[in-house]
């Protein structure tokens, strides 16, 4: 039965480390990024931004700017507000009262918020004229601390009456009973996960063109979740979704940060409309990006209590978490539930209680930064397990082994109903220990301690949950019209028999074109270089659903399932057609490449028809085709529907994600005794993302996610002063990780195929922010004997120095152990 689809396991093309087809154009400098585009009659837009974090706008005077050379229009926030509806809010209650316009109207709520936009014939003219816009502000007290935000002494959104935008209690199992029965209870005071951003190297960019005849808008942009953006833009602009055309080509990295650019898109669209449909281009500067694109969520963990049995097995955790989403919730409060995809992390405890609050502040709005919401929670759990191990005198590797979910327990249902597909965390730990040389370093550590050196080994066990179920939005807002997950793809034979794949994804360097070609090549049994893959995303290709975008570690599952499904449909049509032409049974056919290119032949004969012949019959020469084959189009669209149900909203229970890739990292670190700089001495990263489609791409994603985590743990931090001025608004201040700070990685892997995806793959790429957990654990190990508790996800020479001096601005939390057994 050769015409059956090939088995999904490693085949001729799937599973091979093929060189990416994207490399060719990119190493030639022929990528097509938004900034590279020039369109006839194109205008440039420059925002005028607030220097204040929180201020009332008393007056905006654009008269001088309007008369500046080359200026065609200046839009103020009030004018924009008069022409659009506020963006929809996902959250209920208080968040539902947030009024989010594309620009500030009555007051500014973060430094860098746009208050006016100048449109001019050139970028220089727009920048020059923006300097002439006069704005009078009345400064207000900024809200910069999540705990202070709860006091509501100053309100970010006055009409809300509170800075809280979401609150929920999550409780699973029998928490009180577990605490009553505990042999040990460890209490941990305040901990804090800092604000950072993965800062893609390409800033955001938009070219909006309003077509006055069709009343439609074309966006060429860097937005990485265009179906979501369209659903926000459509009601705001009063334009049907079908009249919003979204296109993207090469995108210079995204990491989730490019999801929430719809406010800027709206302003560009309005400017184009006002100016008769001339294209309006906006290219963000790095400082604008740092101030006003999106940051990752900042989270504070309070009043944590951990119940453990006499062996150090955690039986229950309770805590209070406050998430700071910045000035406007936008994609939030989804982060208030997304952490629950990995509620127990890699661990077996069944009893959990958290009081979860999200507040707004006068900081940049957050966006779903790589590792979105799960990394904050995983960091919290890893700190908990690590601190408990140290406090109870249980070695940190042993502590984890005692608490890991066992490999024989998969598929494993978590206390909140998520189903972990597969994994073997203990084995990953073993591999990582081997890679890093654990035992050798343990010996060296003993020696180092005798010399008074601060050397530590740390483990981070994390999960990268992929393919999210949007039904979790219902737990946030029972009326949210979202659930499940889907992706669309199209595979066709074009008129001359070309195999053409249209992606429904929005790649930003993840090699989707390459893996798509691998999958189709496998199905049709032709080499991948005979497959044309249309790069970039385009709504006009009609391969989108409301979930279309590149986010939530899912392309290997959802994107490739859609492509595989479309290729299978095409294969079935080809087989039916070829059987008719070759007067054979479908079971007698085989697919492959002949002298005349890709073809179908009758096994053991020289009877064959190539793809040109097949496409010709349907597209050009169809009088030869009987009417009962008129349904064959050779143009196959397939929508993958992930197997999800709507979660139980009351119980906050259900499967929130389809696959669970895992990361196990180990770091060896030393704190310099003179400079207090933490230095990585050795680093091992073990990854399990199930079956790999292209190991080269997987390895690249592991490297990249690791660099982001190391950068965030030791260097990158969005720092605000007490007035709300962002002190890290350039790369020179923010210091993204460079090659000088990046250690050599010892990488290893394990493949536990997912039973929930057709190809055994698990989505990957976000990487669980494993280095944050790992580095904090290593520093903890290095500094525990000096009575230092690592309580912040960002640690620098400066912060370690102050911690050792005992004069930190945010002192270490009190940790208390109650031994009851």
């Amino acid at each position, binding site marked *: 039965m050769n015409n059956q689809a090939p088995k999904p396991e490693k085949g001729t093309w799937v599973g091979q480390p093929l060189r990416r087809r994207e490399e060719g154009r990119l190493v030639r*400098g022929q990528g097509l990024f938004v900034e590279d585009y020039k369109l006839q009659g194109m205008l440039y837009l420059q925002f005028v931004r607030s220097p204040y974090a929180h201020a009332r706008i008393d007056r905006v005077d654009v008269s001088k700017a309007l008369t500046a050379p080359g200026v065609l229009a200046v839009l103020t926030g009030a004018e924009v507000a008069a022409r659009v509806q506020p963006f929809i809010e996902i959250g209920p209650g208080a968040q539902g009262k947030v009024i989010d316009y594309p620009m500030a109207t009555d007051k500014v709520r973060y430094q860098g918020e746009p208050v006016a936009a100048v449109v001019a014939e050139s970028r220089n003219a727009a920048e020059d004229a923006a300097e002439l816009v006069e704005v009078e502000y009345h400064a207000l007290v900024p809200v910069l601390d999540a705990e202070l935000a709860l006091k509501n002494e100053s309100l970010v959104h006055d009409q809300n009456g509170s800075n809280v935008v979401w609150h929920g209690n999550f409780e699973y199992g029998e928490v009180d009973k577990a605490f009553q029965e505990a042999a040990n209870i460890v209490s941990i005071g305040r901990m804090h996960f800092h604000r950072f951003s993965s800062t893609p190297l390409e800033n955001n960019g938009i070219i909006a063109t309003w077509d006055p005849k069709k009343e439609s808008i074309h966006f060429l942009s860097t937005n990485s979740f265009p179906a979501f953006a369209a659903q926000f833009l459509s009601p705001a602009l009063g334009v049907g979704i079908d009249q919003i055309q979204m296109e993207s080509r090469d995108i210079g990295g995204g990491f989730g940060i490019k999801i929430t650019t719809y406010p800027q898109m709206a302003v560009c669209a309005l400017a184009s409309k006002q100016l008769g449909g001339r294209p309006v281009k906006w290219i963000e500067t790095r400082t604008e990006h740092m101030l006003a694109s999106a940051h990752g969520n900042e989270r504070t963990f309070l009043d944590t209590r951990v119940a453990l049995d006499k062996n150090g097995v955690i039986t229950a955790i309770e805590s209070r978490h406050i998430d700071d989403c910045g000035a406007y919730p936008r994609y939030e409060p989804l982060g208030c539930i997304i952490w629950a995809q990995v509620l127990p992390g890699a661990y077996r405890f069944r009893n959990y209680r958290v009081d979860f609050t999200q507040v707004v502040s006068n900081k940049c709005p957050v966006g779903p930064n790589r590792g979105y919401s799960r990394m904050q929670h995983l960091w919290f759990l890893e700190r908990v397990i690590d601190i408990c191990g140290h406090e109870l005198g249980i070695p940190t590797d042993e502590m984890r082994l005692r608490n890991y979910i066992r490999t024989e327990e998969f598929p494993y249902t978590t206390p909140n109903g998520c189903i972990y597909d597969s994994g073997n965390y203990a084995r990953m730990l073993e591999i990582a220990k081997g890679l890093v040389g654990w035992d050798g370093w343990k010996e060296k550590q003993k020696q180092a301690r005798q010399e008074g050196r601060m050397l530590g080994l740390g483990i981070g066990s994390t999960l990268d949950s992929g393919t999210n179920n949007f039904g979790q939005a219902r737990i946030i807002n029972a009326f949210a019209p979202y659930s499940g997950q889907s992706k669309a793809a199209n595979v066709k034979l074009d008129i001359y028999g070309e195999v053409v794949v249209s992606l429904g994804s929005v790649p930003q360097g993840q090699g989707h074109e390459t893996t798509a070609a691998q999958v189709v090549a496998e199905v049709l049994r032709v080499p991948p270089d005979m497959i044309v893959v249309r790069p970039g995303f385009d709504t006009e290709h009609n391969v989108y659903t409301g979930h279309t975008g590149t986010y939530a570690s899912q392309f290997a599952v959802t994107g490739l399932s859609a492509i595989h499904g479309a290729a299978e449909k095409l294969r079935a049509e080809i087989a039916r057609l070829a059987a008719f032409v070759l007067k054979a049974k479908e079971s007698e056919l085989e697919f492959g490449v002949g002298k005349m290119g890709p073809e179908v032949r009758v096994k053991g004969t020289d009877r064959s028809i190539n793809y040109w012949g097949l496409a010709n019959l349907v597209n050009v020469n169809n009088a030869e085709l009987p009417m009962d084959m008129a349904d064959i189009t050779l143009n196959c669209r397939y929508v993958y529907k992930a197997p999800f149900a709507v979660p139980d909203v009351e119980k906050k229970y259900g499967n929130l994600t389809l696959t669970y890739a895992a990361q196990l990292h180990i770091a060896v670190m030393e704190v310099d005794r003179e400079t207090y700089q933490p230095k990585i001495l050795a680093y091992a990263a073990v990854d399990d993302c199930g079956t790999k489609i292209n190991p080269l791409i997987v390895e690249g994603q592991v490297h990249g996610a690791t660099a982001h985590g190391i950068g965030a743990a030791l260097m990158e931090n969005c720092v605000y002063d007490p007035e709300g001025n962002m002190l890290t608004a350039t790369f020179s201040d923010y210091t993204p990780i460079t090659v000088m700070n990046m250690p050599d990685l010892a990488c290893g892997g394990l493949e536990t195929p997912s039973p929930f995806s057709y190809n055994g793959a698990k989505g990957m790429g976000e990487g669980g922010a494993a280095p944050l957990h790992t580095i904090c654990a290593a520093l903890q190990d290095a500094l525990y004997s000096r009575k230092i508790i690592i309580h912040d996800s960002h640690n620098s020479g400066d912060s370690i120095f102050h911690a050792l001096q005992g004069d930190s601005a945010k002192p270490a939390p009190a940790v208390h152990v109650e031994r009851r057994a």
Partner: protein
Amino acid sequence: MSLAFDKVPLQLTVNGKPCAVEVEPRTLLVELIREQLNLTGTHVGCDTTYCGACTVLLNGRNVKSCTVLAVQADGSDVRTVEGLATEGKLHPVQEAYAANHGLQCGFCTPGLLMSTVRLLEKHPKPSDQQIRKAIAGNTCRCTGYQNILKAIRAAAAAGK
């Protein structure tokens, strides 16, 4: 405020071709390259001389073209990423990056390629420390540098 400065005529060689242009005095070299010469392979990532996406070779030395005024390049020889491949064939450094997955989104790549070309012209057999220092001013947000280092080592080995 009027910023109507007289334009300045410049003559320079770009990727081996002589060109004569007129620029506003404030024009940056990267703006000249991208906007006037339409060589969009050279990118702008940060505006503060940190990221190196704009790296080009100016008289053989790698410079960040966001921090060079176009007028400073008058009479100079400029090489950009577009000048690396010859007759459709990739430069060995481009080939090494492509073969070793030394890029993901590709935005930083042109700058890294130019820094690497400069390194290997100066040190055909670079030490690891020389490699790291050569690209210390080039930020990549995707690769974690692992495969970039691998690519540079491969390019150096291929050049021997």
